[in-house]
């Protein structure tokens, strides 16, 4: 599938602090791409470069076959953006703000606008300074989703939304995807990304450290194993045998129960070893997105 966004070797510094350090990212047409990382990892900086708000120091950035810095106006007809921290004009009502953005785009889908206001239970007559954080966010979401843009760039769009509205938001994003729109969804809410994204990129210190579908990521990540062994063999012989296997780590013994994690190449050997000692109960869990995420940010945990 064609790429709607492709970034290679992107670098950006603010003074002496390095925000992006050789970032690569590719979003294919029609996919929801989760962009995952904690605050300060460089997510917003990347999105701002994609929108031509910041200029890249080095690297290549293409959006819909254009240069986001040079072709601002033509590209922005095809892109809609939801900022992470929406600040509305204090004196303008939410409806006026939505229509202002719509007018700049040369019109919006009237039917969709009305529908979205209903779905998100947003009162458009309230003035900017009187909206809560979640409602300000909804104003930007309605403005973006009622546009006819092909690409949606969403920067932590659900911050401030309550769980019910978050579910509504996920449903709407799935509908957008079904209509063939491509979505770049930056977030630090793992459940949101896990349920929406076709592919995920994890960013750390200005670099994408892992990218792919959740299945692909799982396949070369560590699997958690918990087993209850027969008899007293566990402590004396099973544990040393398991530890000796390549790829087995974090082994923990609790009476006759043994926990460990194993990388994808070592799973078969570990199962054989366990079977040889006699297993009365066994759970094998594939890594969750949280496990994957924490593996990449493990260093932070060990330093703390």
């Amino acid at each position: 599938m064609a790429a709607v966004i492709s970034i290679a070797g992107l670098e950006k510094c603010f003074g002496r602090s390095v925000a992006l350090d050789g970032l690569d990212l590719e979003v294919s047409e029609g996919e929801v791409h989760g962009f995952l990382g904690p605050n300060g990892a460089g997510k917003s900086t990347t999105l701002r470069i994609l929108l031509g708000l910041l200029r890249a120091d080095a690297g290549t950035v293409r959006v819909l076959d254009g240069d986001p810095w040079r072709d601002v106006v033509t590209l922005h007809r095809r892109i809609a953006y939801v900022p992470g921290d929406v600040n509305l004009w204090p004196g303008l009502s939410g409806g006026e703000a939505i229509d202002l953005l719509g007018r700049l785009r040369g019109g919006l889908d009237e039917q969709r606008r009305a529908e979205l206001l209903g779905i998100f239970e947003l009162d458009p007559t309230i003035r900017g300074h009187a909206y809560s954080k979640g409602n300000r966010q909804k104003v930007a979401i309605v403005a973006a989703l009622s546009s006819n843009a092909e690409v949606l760039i969403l920067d932590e769009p659900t911050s401030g939304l309550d769980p019910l509205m978050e579910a509504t938001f996920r449903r709407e994003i799935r509908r957008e995807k079904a209509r063939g729109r491509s979505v770049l969804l930056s977030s630090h809410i793992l459940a949101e990304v896990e349920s929406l994204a076709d592919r995920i990129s994890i960013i750390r210190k200005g670099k994408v450290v892992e990218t792919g579908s959740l299945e692909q990521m799982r396949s070369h990540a560590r699997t958690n194993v918990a087993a209850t062994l027969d008899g007293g063999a566990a402590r004396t012989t099973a544990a040393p045998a398991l530890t000796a296997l390549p790829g087995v780590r974090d082994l923990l013994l609790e009476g006759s129960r043994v926990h460990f994690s194993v990388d994808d190449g070592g799973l078969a050997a570990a199962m054989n070893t366990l079977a040889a000692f006699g297993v009365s109960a066994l759970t094998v869990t594939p890594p969750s997105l949280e496990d994957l995420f924490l593996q990449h940010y493990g260093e932070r945990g060990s330093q703390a």
Partner: protein
Amino acid sequence: MSGTPFTGTTALLRHALRLDRWKLLPWLLVFGAFPMMSYAAYASVFSTPLEARALQLSLGSNPAFSLLFGQPGDLGTAAGFTTWRVQMFGMFFAALMAVFAVTRHTRAAEESGRAELLDSGVVGRHARLASAVVLAWLASAAVTALVELALMAAGSPTGPAFALGSAFGGMGLAFAGVAAVTAQLGSSGRTANTLAATVLGTSYLLRGLGDTLDNAEWLLWTNPMGWAEQIRPASENDFRPLLLLLAVALALTALAAWLESRRDFGMGMIAPRGGPARGRLGTWGLTVRLNGGAFWTWGIVFIALGSVYGLVATTMSTVFRDNPFVRQMITFRLATEEQLLFAFVEVLLLVLAFIGGVFGIQVVLRFHAEEDEGRAEWLLSAPLSRLAYAAPTVVLAAVGPALGMAAGAAALATSARMAGSELDTAQVVAQGLAEVPALWLAAAVALFLVGLAPRARAVAWLLLVYWLLLTMFGPVLEAPEWLMGTSPFHVVPNVTDSAPDWTPVLWTLAIATGLVVAGLAGYRRRDLSGR
């Protein structure tokens, strides 16, 4: 929950002090430095006390100066001269400092959500208000002390130094109270500041009229600025009005606390109205909407001030007749009465021009605030080029102040003619418009900075203040001509001259255009700052 309504006040105050150290410091330094410089300049300006007395006589009879700076008390001493030069401005800015400080820590903090985090801790109902008012009072006390110390360091006796410092500090106290009340009334920081600034502007005007018009001294007792003026540093050193200011400060703060206990967090007494569900704004409409408040406020200021100036100009005729020096000039045909009157009107128009400069800079900085507060980023994510986004601001910053100048000058001429003076309306308006390139330059400097060095944007204000001080006081202090030439307001020719020299005005225009072009080019190429 245990504790009093004031539980947590000291903790909040400490927090506010830490937040504000760098915000308050420049104000304090300016308050200390200006009186000191003025005091030190006295000896070099007047070689004999006689010269000073002569200036006092001519200034005392000049209503334009009384309107702006108050009645000169005793120019025979350095302290008296300093008082005349800095008292009104000092009082005005001390009040403004207090207003901003109180609003920042009450209404604006509530609005931004900063307050909610702190107030959900162990904090009494009135602790936030109390800490903000106490902060402003401490700052006012610091101003008083600084002015006193600076003047004494320059050689002033204690009495006048303390009196002048008290006039500043007293205004700070009283207007901290005003802002405490307006912070309860308005539901946004901007509304609260605007309401308080309106009270201050009205005070300034009432006091000015009290100083200028005949039999209108009672007007000085109607407002805090009049009271603070009545301390009359260096001549009377009367501290009784200070008690009045203190009483008002306490009464207003108590009123604010009462209002606060009757409203909900985040809400104002003036309930926010809803807006339309649909909108038809584009970038032009948006820019007009965002600046609408400022446009009408300044429009009213231009017309009101112009009308008042018209009345003041009319009283000049009496002055001419009473002043032997002026009578001599007229007798010897060195100048006609019309010429003298017009020269006087020129000075009045200059004041309007500075207000126009403030307006223009404000429009440009409003544009930058949109970027600072993250709204520009959202707008520019739509198909909108940066130049197209900036264009309405550039046009409004050029047209708005020019319209204001024209309206103000027309109001001046009209009210003067209605009061019976012989002023040519077309000439007055032409003179007013001749000042427009100078105020464009002020706005152009602001745009240049926003485009290329947004962190230094406050320099535009400093430059305008420098031009104001230089143009107003330079001639009195006999500043050299090359120095005077650095003010675009000074180089404007008199349009009634037989051959007015427009070259400097064309230069002003050229520089302004260059700055706008450079600023826009910079804005187009630089990173947009986000939140």
